[in-house]
């Protein structure tokens, strides 16, 4: 589970996903603000600040994972973001409010409410998978894993 050959691939894959998700949001903050607004979970005064800062958090966490810098902290941040995304999408699914995820594309997809709700279920599954990846990186970078690795080398 925490073998180096697996961990490095997982962290690069997770990092690449976060970088890919961040770029369109950084390039078009007003569109991403509109996406956040559509979730109807963020107070009006915070929508814009979140739209500006969150993509940069995603980008830096993703880059850190890809480059192998501050891996544990980057995985913590990525995991926290994923928990927030799961909560936001899950809550909207529960209350039947269809939205475009805005995860990788900030343009409106022009889908019907039922199509949006179906997409949201897939997004939930995907984000659970990504959370598992973040968990793997956290496990691989834990102090116990580091000790175990040193012992096995020594």
């Amino acid at each position, binding site marked *: 589970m925490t073998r180096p050959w697996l961990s490095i691939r997982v962290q690069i894959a997770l990092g690449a996903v976060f970088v890919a998700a961040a770029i369109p949001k*950084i*390039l*078009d*903050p*007003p*569109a991403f*603000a*509109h996406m956040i*607004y559509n979730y*109807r*979970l*963020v*107070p*009006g*005064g915070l*929508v*814009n*600040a979140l*739209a*500006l*800062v969150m*993509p*940069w*958090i995603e*980008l*830096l*966490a993703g880059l*850190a994972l890809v480059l192998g810098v*501050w891996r*544990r*902290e*980057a995985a*913590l*941040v990525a995991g926290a973001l994923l928990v927030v995304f799961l909560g936001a999408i899950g809550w909207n699914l529960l*209350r*039947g*409010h*269809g939205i475009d995820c805005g995860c990788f594309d900030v343009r*409106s997809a*022009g889908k019907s*409410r039922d199509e949006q709700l179906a997409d949201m279920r897939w997004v939930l599954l995907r984000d659970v998978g990504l959370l598992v990846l973040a968990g793997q990186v956290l496990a691989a970078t*834990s*102090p116990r894993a580091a000790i175990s690795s040193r012992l096995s080398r020594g």
Partner: protein
Amino acid sequence: MVRASNVGRVVALLVLAGAGAAISNFAASSDRKLAWVGSYPRALQVEPAGSPAMAEAAPPALQRKQPPVQAPATPATSSASSSAVGSPATPPAAPPAVPPAADTAGLARAFPPHPDKPAVEIAPADVERLYRGKALFLDARRSSVYAEGHIAGARSLPVWESDIDARVKGLYEEGLDQKAPIVVYCSGGTCEDSHMLAEKLYMVGFDNVLIYKDGFPDWQKRALPSSKGANP
């Protein structure tokens, strides 16, 4: 287990993210800039499926606490006269010419003001009548989308771009008749941009904002006059 060093690095990452956001927003073009604090009164409201986005009465956050200061009352006539009366010490940039209203009295009777609510949705047939009567049309979509095609003569007030409040203020300072009908539109369907723009206009005292709910796609379907580019 999370250690202090981990927390420190997470905080550093968040601070760097904030700095990155500030720099990128500063460097962004005007249509990609975002104000750090927006105003979205309905940000926590979820409309039931199928219900109109605009409530019958203005929600508490939108109720005007005091009557707005009436801008110099000039009818929507030529731009030369509207800019000469009550012009401010530092005159704003000359707005696009507003064509003379051909049927002001008729439109005023058919579409009376509604100061109790931000806007009223109107049917496409009414939109055409207002267009022929030379009412002011405002496009709430992004400026890039506006440039790709808009109702001919409509002005762009992109509600999601950072200078929207300045543009609304500029419109107010033109001294237009705040009881004359103004038509706002966006992309139709579930698009709420027109409603958001209507609320901003209502807050500065425009009492007769009408929403063309089906928006520009419906206008195009009816083969009515449209233009491209950044100007009306």
